């Protein structure tokens, strides 16, 4: 049975704000679609439209054979009829019910014993044992988030909408839940639409990535592709592309292009469509550093420069290099110590051809 | 300014009037104003029980026309009035009353009307409160129908409320004051049969001039008007018998 979620709608708030969505994908079995974008771009609104909590002004939403929404035919199924699970960004736990009863809320027509079992399993899975009889205001923020997650999952909905499910969790639990969540969801075989603003989370969880900006879908596709090959400068900024520099293509040859950036030349795959003016994008982790050595001719892009600054970021170090233009590289701390990186020292940066991504610039 | 007010007070009689006496008193007041244009009469109508409670707290009235003799006597006993200032001003009568649309032939049936099968509820004034209620109860007993009607009685808190019950058709028959039955608003709406006077103790209504009366002259004038020939004429027309001299 192949179910497809197809959504194409416009939701307006007043005259200024409009959220446009247009995507579709097979949702017949487990897969995670991540909505990714800056704060206020319309992620929550899109989820709410899918859930039936918000009624778009135009368009159509279908899931498998059933039409959830159709502006023209005035169809608008209620959230109950859609059989979805929705995790609210601010949890929305019921303040008058205990943790146990919050989680059991959606279990209707289930025997007492069965309910105990199902909820108990969730409590264990989410590390909430011992909190059953507390009320939501008596547990911490992260505990609340896990309770909300458990409450949604225990009902086994046919489509899961998660609005930043892990944002209030500490790193170890978060990491664990991130993996667990995938297994859990695979277990339950439920397709998921997930909102996150965390790049690592998106990479770890997503099968399919949709980048939103100012209410519009800017790019969608497999995660790696979207992150490494943003279609335009805005998407590049949103997915946190570390190096974006204007450049000019001076030559193309057999699908390879030579780009001039600053006063240096780089080789890259030619962009489609071809354009002379381009942005050159390089992920910082794709830049490899070596002790400075005379420039050799080689298929690789080899750039000699000097280190401008070093920024420690947890286990990694961001190295800004001046090599005619400003280039940021990411290395691990020991690697940086190994190379004895210091500000002002000369260094060679290597970038492989496929790591240089060109975006046409108008 | 205050002096003018005091002057005005002197000329104004504030009268607390028992509700059942309202219709008669309105005409009385109009006639009095014609006779004594220098005096002003401002009546307040209400339940005698309320007035009693209020007067015992120095309510601003000069004259109290009660629905019975009990309240004025109490006021005298408590020192709010002198015994010589109480006076009997009217004696009430009761009637059986049915609205026009009723099919009961009161003329023919007389008191037997209460036993008619169409009479499901009979309204009387509350005997524990209203003199007219006591009279009604006494008359029913004396006429030997009380046991038969006992369970069909409903009680109005005063004679006006009792009238509302019958008039609305909620009760089929009522025992009202004659004064009410002949008064303007009720005259057109129903028929009545006068209950014989000897079946109940006389419903004596007495008035009293309060100790604190501010406009003594006017009050005295009103009192003598009330009990004088003109007043008696009006009383008679409104269905009161006159207190024996």
């Amino acid at each position, binding site marked *: 049975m192949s179910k497809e979620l197809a959504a194409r709608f416009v939701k307006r708030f007043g005259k200024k704000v409009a959220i446009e969505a247009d995507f579709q994908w097979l949702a017949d079995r487990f897969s995670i679609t991540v909505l990714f974008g800056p704060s206020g771009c319309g992620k929550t609104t899109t989820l709410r439209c899918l*859930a*039936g*909590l918000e009624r778009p002004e135009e368009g159509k939403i279908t899931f498998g054979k059933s039409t959830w929404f159709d502006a023209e035919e005035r169809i608008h199924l*209620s*959230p*109950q009829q859609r*059989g*979805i*699970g*929705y995790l*609210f960004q*601010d949890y*929305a736990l*019921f*303040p*008058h019910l205990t943790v146990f009863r919050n989680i059991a*809320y*959606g279990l*209707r027509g289930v025997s007492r014993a069965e309910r105990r079992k199902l909820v108990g399993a969730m409590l264990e899975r989410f590390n909430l044992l011992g909190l059953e009889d507390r009320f939501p205001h008596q547990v911490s923020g992260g505990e609340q988030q896990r309770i909300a997650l458990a*409450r*949604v999952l225990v*009902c086994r909905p046919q489509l899961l909408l998660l609005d930043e499910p892990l944002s209030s969790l500490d790193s170890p639990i978060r990491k664990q839940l991130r993996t667990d969540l995938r297994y859990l969801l695979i277990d339950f075989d439920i397709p998921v639409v997930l909102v996150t603003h965390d790049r690592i989370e998106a990479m770890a969880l997503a099968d399919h990535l949709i980048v939103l900006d100012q209410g519009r879908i800017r790019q969608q596709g497999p995660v790696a592709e979207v992150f490494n090959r943003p279609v335009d400068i805005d998407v590049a900024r949103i997915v946190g592309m570390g190096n974006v520099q204007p450049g000019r293509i001076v030559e193309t040859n057999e699908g390879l292009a030579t780009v001039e950036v600053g006063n240096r030349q780089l080789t890259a795959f030619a962009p489609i469509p071809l354009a002379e003016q381009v942005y050159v994008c390089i992920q910082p982790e794709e830049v490899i550093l070596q002790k400075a050595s005379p420039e050799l001719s080689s298929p690789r892009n080899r750039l000699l420069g000097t280190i401008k600054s070093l920024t420690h970021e947890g286990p990694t170090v961001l190295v800004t290099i001046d090599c005619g233009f400003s280039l940021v590289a990411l290395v691990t701390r020991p690697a940086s110590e190994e190379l004895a990186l210091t500000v002002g020292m000369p260094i060679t940066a290597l970038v492989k051809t496929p790591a240089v991504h060109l975006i046409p610039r108008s | 300014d205050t002096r003018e007010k005091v002057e005005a007070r002197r000329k104004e009689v504030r009268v607390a009037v028992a509700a059942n006496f309202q219709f008669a008193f309105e005409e009385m007041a109009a006639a009095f104003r014609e006779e004594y244009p220098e005096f002003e009469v401002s009546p307040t109508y209400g*339940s005698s*029980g*309320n007035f*009693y*409670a209020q007067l015992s707290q120095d309510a601003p009235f000069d004259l109290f026309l009660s629905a019975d003799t009990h*309240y004025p006597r*109490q006021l005298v006993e408590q020192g709010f009035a002198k015994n010589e200032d109480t006076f009997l001003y009217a004696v009430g009568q009761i009637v059986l009353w049915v609205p026009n*649309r009723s099919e009961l032939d009161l003329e023919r049936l007389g008191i037997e009307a209460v036993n008619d099968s169409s009479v*499901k*509820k009979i*309204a009387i004034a*509350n005997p*524990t*409160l209203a003199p007219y209620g006591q009279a009604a109860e006494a008359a029913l007993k004396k006429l030997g129908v009380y046991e038969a009607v006992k369970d069909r*009685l*409903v*009680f*109005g*808190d005063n004679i006006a*409320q009792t009238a*509302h*019950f019958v008039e*609305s*058709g*909620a*009760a089929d028959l009522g025992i009202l004051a004659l004064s009410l039955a002949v008064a303007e608003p009720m005259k057109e709406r129903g028929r009545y049969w006068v209950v014989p006077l000897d079946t109940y103790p006389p419903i004596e209504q007495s008035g009293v001039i309060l100790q604190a009366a501010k406009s003594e002259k006017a009050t005295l004038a009103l009192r003598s008007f009330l009990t004088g020939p003109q007043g008696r004429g009006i009383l008679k027309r409104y269905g009161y018998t006159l207190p024996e001299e």
Partner: protein
Amino acid sequence: MDWTALAVTLKLAAWTTVILLVLGLPLAYWLVTMRWRGKFLIEAVVALPLVLPPTVLGYYLLMATGPNSYLGEGVESLTGERLPFTFLGILVGSVLFNLPFAVRPFAAAFLSVDRKLIEASWCLGESRLGTFFRIVMPLSWPGIFTGMILTFAHTVGEFGVVLMVGGNIPGVTRTLSIALYDDVQAMQYEAAGETALLLVAFSFAALCIIHFFQRRVVL
């Protein structure tokens, strides 16, 4: 002490409260959730029974339900009973008269329930009705409770409408407050004092128990 009057009073107050709970909750919810721009009209109508003196309201009610009115005829042909001078009659009057004391606090309480919780319940598959019972009602409890307390206490103390529609029949429509009123009117101040004291003491006890119980429920 008039025990039958006490019994009638309690019966009336309890029934009024229950009926207004059953009628008032949906009415209030409907008022809160409806989107019609003219709904302030309905809200105003709900508050109207208040602005007429009880006796006057009672008078009109008597007129409206008497055997000569269509309503009265209808009721009589349906139930074989007249509304005036029956317990049913004073109950109807009492319910009408107390409508605003129940509906307004209910509506105010519903208004303050966080919409997100309602949405969360829908998304967990609970129907609108189920959500009302499982989320909206428990969370509006202070307001619902207020409406019930006001209704109950006010019915105990009411006598205008009840007297007018009920006709003060011992054991049927004579409530304690009518008895008390009669006592005061008849200058039976001692008896009145006793009745009043008992009424107050009894109500005080009842209110205390309810409040105490309510604290348990909420906290």
